[in-house]
């Protein structure tokens, strides 16, 4: 073998080697490890179930119903002090480029997208589970969508009764979902705002459908408290009718909840509903956004972090709350563990006990029986002249449970309503009713000196600006008056 031949051999084998190397390419075998293609989700009943539960995961959005939506409504009520953490929200001088507003808006529509995306894919793959099973999932999606829209429309649009026919500007009503990048970039997404009436009509349509198809009972303690049920849909409808001032329907839907075979009842002690051990067993709870230690909005967003001095401690309880009329010193809602304090003057500070112990994993309370009873009380009181006995009875149930002070019996309809509205604050404070209750009842929001002045219930700045960035990108989206 001469040298030259040896070299040729090397080249020959070298070339073969080079060709073989093409087998080394791993380019086309890469599949994601921690993600899965939607086509592989909607081909299996078990995965469809998981995608349905994923809608609740999206509902836990740290910027919205993970707790912040409730906080924002209360920041503009009168039960908490002005928190510097929330910047210009509590002081009604937001600018349209407010980052919190953008994040909240984004978070809300992100939750809505999940429900819409799920429904759209399920429609395309309904055969995998059949129409009957699909109906329940659609009902859950619609409940979630309606729930989010309720807060969106109340934060960014004037209250329903702002105009007689609710024809004032509402919010963009998105009922479809982008399936891919091209859909997401489609200019047709630049939709304008529906009227408030249209939004309410949609919410009620969604909830009617949900109520018809959701189970009364999931036969599962966790699902019964953390997943949509018929009672949850009825309860939310009761609240929506109350907000609309449609008292007969509010009463009817409250009755539907009270008549539920689930047998909802008030807990013995008001703290029981807020105690983490009871989250999945409480007889008072209708629906809450569940959290736990490993799945929560974390340090800067969890509701307990904001409300508890054991966490961030951004939000303390106002003097106005503690000084509500008929809020006796022995009222369980006014003493520990429902109301806590830290420090001594001048740093003596009061905190709500509702989220005190669970800074990260407090569930976000959405619907509980105490609210339903107060809705019924108010609906009856407003419909019937004089003092409606049943309304008063509902109110007294709430008060007696908390060992509240004895009240002077109301003698007029107005007095009864006044009592009920105050009771709502005592009972439901820090659960996301603060500003909405003032606006829907056309009462001005009291001042919190020195920083916050009184706000007329229908003033321009009681609602949030549409995020500036969003109006910049979508020329069809009108800004709220008073903002630019």
């Amino acid at each position, binding site marked *: 073998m001469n040298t030259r031949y040896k070299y040729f051999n090397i080249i020959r084998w070298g070339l073969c080697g080079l060709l073989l190397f093409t087998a080394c390419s791993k380019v086309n075998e890469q599949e994601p490890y921690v993600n899965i293609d939607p086509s592989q989700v909607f081909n299996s009943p078990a995965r469809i179930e998981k995608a349905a539960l994923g*809608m609740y995961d999206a509902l836990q959005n740290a910027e919205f119903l993970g707790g912040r939506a409730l906080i924002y409504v209360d920041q503009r009520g009168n039960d908490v002090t002005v928190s510097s953490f929330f910047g210009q929200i509590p002081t009604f001088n937001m600018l349209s480029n407010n980052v919190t507003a953008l994040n909240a808006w984004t978070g809300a529509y992100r939750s809505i997208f999940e429900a819409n995306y799920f429904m759209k894919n399920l429609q395309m793959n309904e055969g995998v589970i059949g129409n009957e099973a699909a109906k329940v999932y659609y009902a859950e999606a619609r409940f979630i969508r309606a729930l989010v829209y309720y807060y969106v429309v109340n934060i960014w649009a004037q209250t329903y009764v702002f105009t007689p026919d609710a024809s004032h500007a509402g919010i963009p009503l998105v009922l479809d979902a982008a399936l891919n*990048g091209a859909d*997401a970039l489609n200019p047709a997404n630049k939709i304008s705002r529906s009227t408030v009436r249209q939004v309410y009509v949609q919410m009620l349509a969604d909830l009617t459908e949900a109520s018809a198809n959701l189970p009364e009972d999931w036969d599962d303690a966790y699902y019964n408290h953390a997943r949509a049920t018929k009672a949850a849909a009825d309860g939310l409808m009761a609240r929506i009718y109350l907000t609309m001032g449609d008292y007969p329907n509010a009463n009817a839907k409250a009755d539907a909840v009270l008549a539920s075979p689930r047998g909802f009842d008030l807990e013995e002690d008001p703290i029981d509903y807020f105690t983490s051990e009871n989250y999945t067993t409480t007889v008072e709870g209708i629906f809450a956004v569940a959290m736990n230690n490993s*799945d929560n909005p974390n340090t800067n967003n969890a509701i307990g972090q904001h409300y508890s001095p054991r966490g961030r401690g951004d939000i303390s309880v106002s003097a106005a709350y503690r000084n509500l009329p008929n809020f006796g010193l022995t009222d369980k809602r006014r003493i520990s563990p429902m109301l806590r304090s830290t420090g001594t003057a001048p740093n003596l500070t009061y905190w709500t006990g509702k989220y005190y112990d669970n800074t990260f994993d407090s569930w976000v309370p959405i619907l509980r029986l105490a609210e339903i009873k107060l809705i019924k009380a108010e609906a009856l009181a407003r419909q019937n002249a004089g003092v409606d006995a049943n309304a008063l009875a509902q109110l007294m149930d709430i008060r007696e449970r908390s060992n509240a002070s004895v009240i002077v019996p109301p003698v007029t309809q107005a007095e009864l309503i006044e009592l009920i509205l105050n009771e709502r604050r005592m009972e439901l404070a820090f659960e996301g009713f603060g500003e909405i209750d003032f606006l829907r009842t056309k009462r001005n929001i009291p001042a919190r000196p020195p920083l916050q002045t009184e706000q007329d219930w229908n003033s321009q700045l009681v609602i949030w600006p549409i995020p500036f960035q969003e109006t910049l990108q979508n020329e069809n989206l009108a800004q709220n008056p008073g903002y630019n």
Partner: protein
Amino acid sequence: MKRMLLLMFFSVMLCGQLMAQSRVITGKVTDVKDGTPLPGVTVAIKGTSKGTITNQNGEYRIEVSGPNDVLVFSFIGYGNQEAAVPTGGVRNVELGLDDKTLQEVVVTGYVDIKRKDATASTSKIDGSEINNKVIQSFDQALDGLAAGVNANVQSGALGDAVAVRIRGVNSISNSAQPLFVVDGVPLNTVNNLNVFNSGNGTRYNPLADINPNDIESVDVLKDAAAAALYGSRAANGVIIITTKRGKKGSAVVGYNMNLSWVTGARIPKVLNGDEFNMIQNEKANNLNVANIANDIDLNGDGQPDRSDWIKEVFKTGFQQTHQLNFSGGSEKAQYYGSAEYADLKGFVITNRIRRGSGRLNLDITPKSWLKVGASLYASRALNNGVISDGFLAGSTFAGYNAPPNVPVYNTTGDYGGLYLTANNRDLGNGNNNVTYRLNRFFHPLSSVLLGRNDNESNRVQGNVYGEISPVKGLKVTSRFGIDYIQNMEDQYSGPDQAGNGFGLNGLVQENLLRINLWNWSNFATYTATFNERHNLTVTAGLEYQYSRRRELYTGQGNLADDYFKNIYDGLFAGSDNSFTGGTENARAFDSYFGRAAYSYSNKYYAEFVFRADAYSGFGINNRRGYFPGGSLGWRISEEDFFKNNIKFVNDLKIRASYGLVGNSEIGPYAWRTMYGGGTYAEVNGLTMSQIGDPNLQWETSKKLDIGLDASFLDNRIGFIFDYFRNNVDNLVLNAPILRTVGVPGSTVTTNIGSMWNQGFEFTVNASPIEGKDFTWDVSANFTTLKNEVTKLVDGSDIPSGVSRASIGRPLGVFFLIRYAGVNPANGFPLFYAKDGSVRQYNPSPGIPTVADRWTTQDGSAKVPAITANDGVYIEGATGYPTWYGGLDNTFSYKGFTLNISLQFSGGNYIINGTRQSMMTNSLQNNITEILDRWTPSNTNTTIPKLFLQDNISTQTSTRWLEKADYLRVKRISLGYNFPNVKQKLGMSTLRLFVAGDNVALLTGYSGQDPEINTNRATNIAFGVDSRGVPLQRAFSLGLNAAF
């Protein structure tokens, strides 16, 4: 076409031979230094057009007409040498190097190119610029060293990532960091190994794993002709690192030591206790609120307690580096080995990096046709990090904010002795009324003394290669390299540490990150010279790369006791506070590449490069991209008309290149539409994680470069000039989707948008004085840059913070409300409305509504509030420098060497967020600037009257926008080489030096340092300093010894 050209040259040569006369002279031209033959040397007869070129063995043959002829030997970089015609027939000549730069080798990772033959735009940085410096990673040293290269050390926290930008920022949403290649193996493209706090808590730059003292040289590939070899990864340029290797015929053992003392160069000046009380109470009183800042005397010494938190947090850090190296080799084998230990303490309390590393580089040539070798490197680093920047609990942030009128320590010894509150372990409130604070006050020492923010990085990096030369001129190389990173991030929050530590009764969190990368390149290079004048080099190859990243984390709260600071069996209770999880991804490339370079007689050059990359992260419809590049060069100085007329120019070459490269730093699955984990508390769920674009592809950079290399006056002055233009198309944008569409992340990654960068680069290297004892070398570089965004998603801006990507404007243009100063009459802040009119904001108490607070400057009429709509583009103002450079002077006198390095940059602006937050009107410590606030007796000021919690006057506006031009005395060093150490001590080198780094900073910027940037994750909102850690200043003492 090419064949015709060749034929033409052949015929010219034949003519020359026909005219030749009687006598033939032969000889050999060698390098005076090592006697190696020099091919390609021009041998001419003076005063005639006759000449020839030495062959591959340095031999020549020329016919002369008579004994009076003079032979002129000339070679690029070796100057000219004349010799008389010998009486015999042989004349051997030795030529000496007179321009080192031309013989410099440009390392591209696949093929080495002599500088004189290079037609692409590259810069070389010698290892001496990087060795023995007070740095944690070599990229920190790059600033000011090479034209077109801007290395932004963004923080003084040890091991923080460095933003390296070559010829500007060439991407909007993707990484703008260049590709780093070490000894032919592309490194992992990850800037930060830490993931807790979204990777923004303590950051760790993986380049800090690599011992800077092992680096022989750094080559920067800037234009397409150079970088197209790296195809889809080359758009941001490529940085090639070559580590030291053994040299034939030597055996050296060396020891290098560096001792440094580092401090924070410019630290914020905050109010002392008395000033604090005065200012805070003035804020309150102006709002009719009673005093909010009141003294406390906790230790009962009769004096109000005072704390200088800045002094508590910032210390002098001592750093030491010891490196032992050995190198040498014979004809057949060369070796380089090193071992290093570095213990680097930062100037922020407890901040420290300890690194140990070892390297072994081997090259073995058993046969003339076979060479094998290896580069092996392993290191381990322990980083005691400190959280900083945006974190309230971080020492620096907490230290800036904390009231100076409360004590550091308590008197009971509880909580590790620190003065903390009982209810949440925040810093104690003293007698201050904290209702009006902006943020919680964390004790500045609690996160570092009661907790831990560490990471431990283990790195194995290296390659083995084999090279065979089956036939003359052909070299086939196979190189298999790995880069393995294992980083263990280790965070502990003690039970007395406010936040999670307290909330969860002690919390440990661990994250184990592993990145395994392998890269296999196989390529062949064929070099041939035809007829002595035609040089051809052809390279072709293929390359595969695969990297997989895996993370596993665990966490545990409710620890048994604060004695136990880790997760140990049986030493925690309950399952509620156990966390675990992880993530994983992988990416793969396969590539074909080639290069062909032709040159004629050191005069004409043409080069073509090409790469085809398939990347798993490109959309399924666009898997493979093709990246060609080409360049031409013409050495005018070799033309007779030039050579014969212009004597003071030794070398003059013009070159031009054009090509297409890509940016593929796209997430591994960015193109997919996917579901991901969507736990709903107790139950498993799946949630949409991404909406994707299956057409997603690389960003395309069309790069043009026109350059000129020249040297004058016996090569005493070298000059490099480049004009560059980079048109970037198909920018991968995280296209902002309307929020109402609701897609995850509100973005879709897609290719829309374009922009361009263009500029000039100048480099001058000169030796103004070259005496026997005294020499002066100076090297300077200067770069100008211009950028413009030309296309975006739908024409509307992409906002990010207060910066924007906006068509027709440079990337990152600031968009701000304009501050109009203070009304001297009443101290109220003034702003410009969009139309330019001035509006006044009245924060006084007792104004009924917000609408009543805004008036014209004279207060006569109500006007609408200033809002985001009053923002305007601050035209031309971005966070990116538009000019930068460096100036390096070295003076040598006998054994002494004095080096002074300056570095400068400017044309950019910074939002001084530190200043903004430290001028707050809430209860919190302020910087001393606030002392100049408006008062009835100080009316001529830009700081409004202080009203508690007024956040309108301090809102983000041009009030906080500052020019960032600076000149930095980067380093002054004085070294002494002991003479005669060989004779006296048997040593080859003994050198001592002292140096100062970041000695002085000349800038109008009022903040800590104009290089600080805390917006690391975005290319748009670049240029924000939000409480970044100041940069370090260091004084060091060093020793280099070699036997």
